[in-house]
């Protein structure tokens, strides 16, 4: 079991981990996902002390590895790490790469290390490459060797830091297949990955990292199907988001139209769709602002790349106010023509309880 309490990792100009507390049970296969720069690799590297935590404590089983007196080399024998860039020794053959650590660190005999090494090479489908040098292998083969080398130490915990992101796309599959098999062996695993389908298929638990920590922790089904929190949902659905805040009737309409236009360009939204997004914003605001006592509106546009769908959500205060009840027929007809669905909801207790969802037409 790995127990982490109030882990913080600070660099001179950035703090990827602010405060992480979590328990990892034996046999958990955890995918660590999230946007770049959210500390996914840092978390892994803190667990085997490749990075020294700034604050906090980590226990592996009952040993506190963040304790200065702890013999980290001993602990590291229980933990294997697979890196993005393989890190094989170029001057050693494949089988020597695999035999090295068990012989040096565990005192395993040469014959025993060789036999086990060959067994592992067969497992990753590369027994015939035993006498080759790493440079003679493809990226996918090198990574499978690196995995075999990690397994040679028979670790209880395997940490994989983006194991397929340095590979040519044609080789991702063979490495994933090996990791998939590994995930069935009951070892505790943590894998940082950007491959969502893979994460979903192999793991029993998913950490979504954001805002300096584990933002959401759940089963693959929860994280991928029913994310509970906003940033998770946006990430999983690959939503591109623009938030606008309107604080006055004389808000900077042109400035906002410019921002929306830049947002549409940046996300390569088609001109037709971009026009609908602009129009829906203008018409909705046109109807809302005169009717609001306090002209405060939070407007958020979300665009899902995969489905090429976009939706505005406008939140505002005051009494119940549904735009579709407006008397401005012309404006409403534009609004209706540019949307495929308009849904109004009253969210009791929210700071801005009126919520208007305008789903942009995408046909």
């Amino acid at each position, binding site marked *: 079991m790995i127990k982490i309490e109030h882990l913080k990792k600070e660099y001179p100009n950035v703090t990827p981990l602010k405060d992480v507390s979590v328990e990892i049970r034996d046999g958990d296969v955890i995918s660590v996902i999230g946007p770049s720069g959210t500390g996914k690799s840092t978390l892994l590297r803190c667990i085997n002390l490749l990075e020294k935590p700034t604050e906090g404590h980590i226990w592996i089983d009952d040993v506190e590895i963040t304790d200065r007196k702890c013999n980290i080399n001993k602990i590291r024998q229980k933990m294997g790490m697979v890196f993005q860039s393989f890190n094989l020794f170029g001057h050693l053959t494949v089988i020597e790469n695999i035999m090295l650590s068990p012989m040096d660190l565990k005192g395993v005999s040469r014959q025993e290390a060789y036999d086990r090494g060959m067994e592992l090479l067969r497992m990753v489908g590369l027994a015939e490459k035993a006498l080759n040098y790493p440079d003679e292998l493809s990226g996918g083969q090198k990574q499978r060797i690196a995995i075999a080398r990690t397994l040679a130490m028979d670790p209880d915990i395997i940490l994989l830091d983006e194991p397929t992101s340095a590979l040519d796309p044609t080789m991702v599959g063979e490495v994933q297949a090996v990791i998939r098999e590994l995930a069935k062996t009951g070892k505790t695993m943590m894998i940082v990955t950007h491959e969502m389908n893979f994460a979903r298929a192999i793991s029993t638990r998913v950490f979504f990292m954001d805002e300096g920590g584990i933002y959401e922790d759940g089963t693959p089904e929860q994280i991928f199907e029913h994310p509970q929190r906003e940033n998770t949902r946006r990430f999983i659905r690959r939503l591109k988001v623009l938030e606008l805040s309107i604080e006055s009737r004389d808000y900077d309409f042109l400035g906002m139209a410019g921002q929306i236009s830049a947002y549409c360009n940046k996300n390569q939204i088609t001109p*037709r769709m971009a026009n609908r997004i602009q129009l829906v914003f203008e018409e909705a605001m046109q109807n809302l602002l005169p009717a609001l006592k306090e002209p405060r509106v939070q407007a958020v546009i979300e665009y899902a790349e995969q489905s090429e769908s976009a939706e505005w959500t406008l939140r505002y205060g005051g009494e119940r106010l549904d735009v579709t009840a407006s008397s401005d027929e012309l404006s409403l007809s534009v609004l*209706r023509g540019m949307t495929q669905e308009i849904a109004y909801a009253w969210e009791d207790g929210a700071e801005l309880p009126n919520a208007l969802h305008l789903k942009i037409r995408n046909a």
Partner: protein
Amino acid sequence: MTISKQQNGKALTLALEGRLDTVTAPELEKELRASTAAIDTLTLDFAKLDYISSAGLRVLLSAHKEMSAKGGLKIQHVNEIVQEVFEVTGFGDILTIE
């Protein structure tokens, strides 16, 4: 939005460039108010118009009403984005678009 004027006797052509929206519609309205009394036919050239919202449509509608008693209002060179707005609002049927 910029408006370029070209007058030929009692025929006026206004070429619009940019966006006809909440902010710019009053400019067109003002321009029309100043010139429609003295003309018979009005042509709006939309070749360089990128965007139109209901605020712009409203100005077109009142120009259409005013000109229908005379030689009428014609709209030219409508791009497909503006055309879509005309279609969903039924303006495509009301206005003369060529």
